[in-house]
């Protein structure tokens, strides 16, 4: 493109660099990265205190969930490359602390709605690994009966109201779910997950406006992994401090380190309390990073290996494991024991998916309309 039409020199340089796959925004990012790292160091110190405050069984359970999501997603990558999983498959590796931390802060009958990168949230909300894997395999035993696939996991029993595959589409929906909870006089809240790129959509702005205006207890969780597909945040957003967007609507907002599970959990606990007690929305910008491509078909040429490695040093699973060890909550043998239980659960889910029958051909025509 730069060869045909010459845009401004800087733009053209950037595109050339991008095309060569060596785009390095290290320099540009330095300021915000170092800022993030400082915050992180500070929080690590705080985490010590937090760990002490949280129940030991809960901590171990959270660690189990983190590892489960990590291993489940690794298995998905394997199955996808074997052709067992079709369509698009967006993995959550690197972002586990967000789903696990946030969902640990709500109750079973609170609601969760999210985007198409939702295996992690589904597992954390309690959808069974078996049914998720079967859904990815397109089998009748899937949590959406094989009709939704990776991007449309649903489970009414645990109030998991779906993966939604139009960027930002779930934001008005979650607002409506929380509206209904309030309309019916319950104190339930809805957690709504989306990526930072969805914040540019009109649906986000319309929803936040309505939520504050009508006092709707919806908790908006922006997982800022810094890339909307292959487009870096700074190439897509004029005001890059995402949390500030909420100020336009007077919605309470916070920035949270998404690599720190307990920091996420605490921020969401505060938001939940605001929702239940004051029936008010909250916006959380949770800064995280995805270690894998946007989807399994991502060429990955828009970011450097060095950048990924830098974030991998702060891998949330490793970080949380290290914290628990440091605090003497768990030792290596304990971690091994969790790993082996997780492996068993993941292997079982694959077996379940393999053995589950394909949907009956007559299912093609069911669930188009609900019979009266």
């Amino acid at each position, binding site marked *: 493109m730069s060869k045909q039409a010459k845009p401004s020199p800087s733009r053209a340089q950037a595109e050339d660099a991008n095309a060569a796959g060596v785009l390095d925004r290290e320099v540009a990012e330095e300021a915000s990265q170092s800022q993030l790292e400082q915050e992180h160091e500070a929080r690590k110190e705080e985490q010590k205190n937090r760990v002490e405050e949280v129940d030991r069984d809960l901590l171990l359970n959270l660690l189990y969930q983190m590892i489960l999501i990590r291993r489940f997603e690794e298995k998905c990558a394997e199955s996808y490359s074997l052709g067992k999983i079709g369509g698009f498959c967006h993995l959550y590796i690197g972002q586990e602390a967000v789903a696990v931390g946030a969902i640990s802060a709500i109750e079973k009958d609170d609601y969760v709605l999210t985007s198409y990168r939702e295996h992690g949230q589904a597992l954390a909300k309690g959808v069974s690994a078996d049914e998720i894997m079967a859904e990815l395999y397109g089998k009748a035993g899937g949590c959406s*009966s094989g009709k939704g696939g990776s991007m*449309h996991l649903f489970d*009414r029993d645990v109030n998991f109201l*779906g993966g939604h595959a139009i960027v930002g589409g779930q934001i008005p*929906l979650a607002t409506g779910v929380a509206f209904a909870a309030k309309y019916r006089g319950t104190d339930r809240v809805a957690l709504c997950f989306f990526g930072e790129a969805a914040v540019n959509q009109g*649906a986000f702005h319309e929803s936040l*406006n309505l939520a504050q205006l009508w006092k709707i207890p919806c908790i908006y969780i922006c997982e800022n992994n810094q890339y909307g597909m292959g487009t870096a945040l700074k190439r897509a957003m004029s005001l890059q401090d995402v949390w500030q967007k909420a100020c336009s609507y007077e919605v309470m907002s916070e920035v949270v380190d998404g690599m720190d599970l307990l920091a996420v959990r605490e921020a969401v606990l505060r938001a939940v309390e605001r929702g239940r007690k004051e029936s008010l929305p909250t916006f959380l910008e949770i800064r995280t990073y995805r270690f894998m491509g946007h989807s399994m078909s991502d060429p990955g040429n828009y970011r450097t290996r060095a950048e990924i490695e830098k974030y991998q040093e702060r891998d949330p699973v490793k970080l949380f494991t290290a914290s628990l060890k440091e605090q003497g909550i768990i030792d290596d043998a304990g971690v091994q024991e969790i790993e082996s239980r997780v492996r068993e659960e993941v292997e079982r889910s694959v077996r379940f998916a393999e053995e589950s029958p394909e949907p009956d051909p007559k299912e093609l025509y069911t*669930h188009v309309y609900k019979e009266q």
Partner: protein
Amino acid sequence: MAVITIREALNQALAEEMRRDENVFLMGEEVAAYQGAYKVTKGLLQEFGEKRVIDTPIVELGFAGLGVGAAMAGLRPVVEFMTFNFSILATDQIINSAAKMLYMSGGQFNIPIVFRGPNGSAFQVSSQHSQALESWYAYFPGIKVVMPSTAADAKGLLKSAIRDDNPVIFMEQERMYGNKGEVPEDEDFTIPLGVADIKREGKDATIVARSLMVPVALKAAEELEKQDVSCEVIDPRTIRPLDIETIINSVKKTNRLVIAEESHPFCGVAAEISAEVMERAFDYLDAPVRRVTGADVPMPYAKNLENLAIPGVKQIVDAVREVAYI
């Protein structure tokens, strides 16, 4: 039976269904304090209060999506679009969310919601405010599309739409709000979705018409009666699911079909009906199916041009004469 306007019939249907079910609530631009841009929601705020009759900001996508979410969590929203022209902003939520939720959740989440408002032409409001969008919505499996043409149908069908467990696009017509007709007063009066109504019986030609075209088609039929041509006028009332059987049976009897519609012809409902008739009643046709449609242009402003863009009695009469070989 009382003789009331379509506007009043719709108002009664809303009030009765809101009394009947606490989960029904009304949301849209100017539905509450303003009493409805077309006064369909007049008095409802007073009776049901701010919790259930809700003025929204001008954010069609936002409140349509909020409605769909509320329906996922068990409420039965009635969302008013001031006109269906504005629903175009909300189509992502109507089509990508409402129409598909039941299917992609494997039957777990149905969406009992009604989107209603005026559709089609008004009076000299030009291109962006005069569109008939039924074929858009009827295209998608998972949505029902309803278009009443009389006061009784308006009431009976709206009540059924609100009680339906699926997303329903309920299309009124601004030019028809003041049309009067007899309406049963019984609170249990409903008309099932998906059942056509034969507005007039005849034997020489069938005219299928909906919404604004129904009174026009009935006038054309009267005119043709004087010319010794007996027309059957069928109002499908529901576009999806379409009661094609009634149309096919009529065509088998009359052998000739004219379909009148206000919308553009291309990929329209009339095109769909012609295809079905061709597939299922080909051997009964004595003439090609004839469509009488709105002009294939954006709606102009000037009165004379606007009149040319909307089908009238003469076009229907001419079309029937053509298929009846007169």
